[in-house]
């Protein structure tokens, strides 16, 4: 899933300080699963805004809406009759959400309420970790099922570097050295040989480096 973190309330209040009527828009996709932008969080953010503004003697109307997804025009469309009732919208979907809202409603003021972080998964309740950088040419099968692109701080294809220490990455004792995990796993499987070959330079053009990407599926087009 795409994992995000809510922006500090102060930042959000600052963004909307000139408005009197705002719509907070959530999303039932990834951000619901990572507890940052679903129906519940929409409610929490909306009431936090109301309370703060009331305390400041500058009351505001905040309405709540949570769409099935904000990354599909079909659902974004559902706001069409109400958008003009608001001074602004705060989207707490991933970064795709505010963009789709702004594209669909060119006259609306749209603000991002979360900081989108990464593609990853839950390690335990309340802890998420990065797993994929969307390089466009997946090669995790060569590395014991671990991604060195997203999880090695230097995206090394030949690790572990000289900074790997006690299973941790040189950048922090809180970051696992994924190359340590790769070596450990392949050693256990008796496949260390596969780490004795040189990996060719990676073709990064399938990644963001090749420019903004688009996936076209002719078979699905109407």
């Amino acid at each position, binding site marked *: 899933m795409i994992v995000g973190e809510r922006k500090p309330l102060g930042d959000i209040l600052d963004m909307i300080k000139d408005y009197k009527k705002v719509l907070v828009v959530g999303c039932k996709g990834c951000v619901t699963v990572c507890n940052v932008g679903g129906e519940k969080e929409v409610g929490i953010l909306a009431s936090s805004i109301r309370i703060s503004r009331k305390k400041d003697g500058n009351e505001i109307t905040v309405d709540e809406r949570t769409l099935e997804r904000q990354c599909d025009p079909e659902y974004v469309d559902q706001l069409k009759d109400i958008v003009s009732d608001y001074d602004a919208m705060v989207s707490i979907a991933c970064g795709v959400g505010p963009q789709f809202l702004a594209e669909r409603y060119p006259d609306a003021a749209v603000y991002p309420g979360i900081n989108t972080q990464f593609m990853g998964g839950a390690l335990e309740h309340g802890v998420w970790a990065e797993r994929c950088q969307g390089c466009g040419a997946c090669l995790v099968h060569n590395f014991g099922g671990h991604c060195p692109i997203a999880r090695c*701080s*230097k*995206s*090394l*294809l*030949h*690790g*572990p*570097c*000289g*900074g*790997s*220490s*006690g*299973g*941790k990455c*040189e*950048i*922090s004792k809180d970051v696992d*050295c994924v190359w*340590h995990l790769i*070596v*450990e796993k392949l*050693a256990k499987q008796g496949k*260390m040989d596969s*780490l*004795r*070959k*040189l*990996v*060719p*330079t990676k073709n*990064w053009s399938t990644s963001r480096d090749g420019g903004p990407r688009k996936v076209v599926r002719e078979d699905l087009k109407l």
Partner: protein
Amino acid sequence: MKAGSNLEKVLTAGIFAITGECGPPRGANAEVVREKAKFLKGNVDSVNVTDNQTAVVRMSSLGASLILIQEGVEPNLQMTARDRNRIAVQSDILGAYALGIRNMLCLSGDHQKFGDHPEAKNVFDLDSMQLIQTVKKMRDEGTLINGHKLDGAPKMFIGCAANPFADPFEFRVYRLANKIDAGADFVQTQCIYNLERFRKWVDQANDMGLLENVFLMGGVTPMKSVGMAKYMKNSVPGMDVPDEIIKRLQGVPKGDQAKEGIKIAVETIHQLREMKGIAGVHLMAIEWEERVPEIVEMAGMLPRPVL
């Protein structure tokens, strides 16, 4: 001869070699480099010039290397993959060779997180292994990564780093083997304080026959003080400083710690000299170049050969 550098000549002649290190200044002051060159000239066979080491911005390795050449000191240009993509890497190699550089040390580079610009984008288009392969391809095949034929191949003597003290230990010798396969001609190791672990790693390398195909130089950094030793032990990832070293430094009066540090370094050099498969030492007297002449003298390595 692959490149014909002084370092290559000394190593190929079977003479126990010594390389020094010069960290360029945090500014454009060429005098700093010239001053350091004075202490290194004639005392070492070649001098590594660091490339924004620890990700702190300094005068470029190429710039400082050129100043060394002007001063009559042979540079060993360090290049990291951290800050340049394959376009810049290859272009810098061509420029460096055209300007007279004949040795290169290929590194991944320290992550920028602890440098002076932690907000920088990191590049790592290639890693150290691929950087070595790139230099080799340019030198031996006379082409770029993409196969484009070069008008003038950069004949570099190719170096790489190895850290036997990083984890996981069992894998370290395989990583060395990969670097040799990639095309490394010589290897300089991380600073050695734990000789026992180093010896174990060298034994493994000898058992695999690796050291017949590469010149291995052991890294030595003299400690200036107990404070430095503790810092290296606790704060530098992949550095192994045993307690005995710290105790030994603590055992002498504060004013004598530097002398003791140099003594330890000289002893290490002697030990390395005795080890099978070790072709030389890489002396990294960090911001302490003025002590290089006496260390090399004490190690019995003067005068340096003129080949």
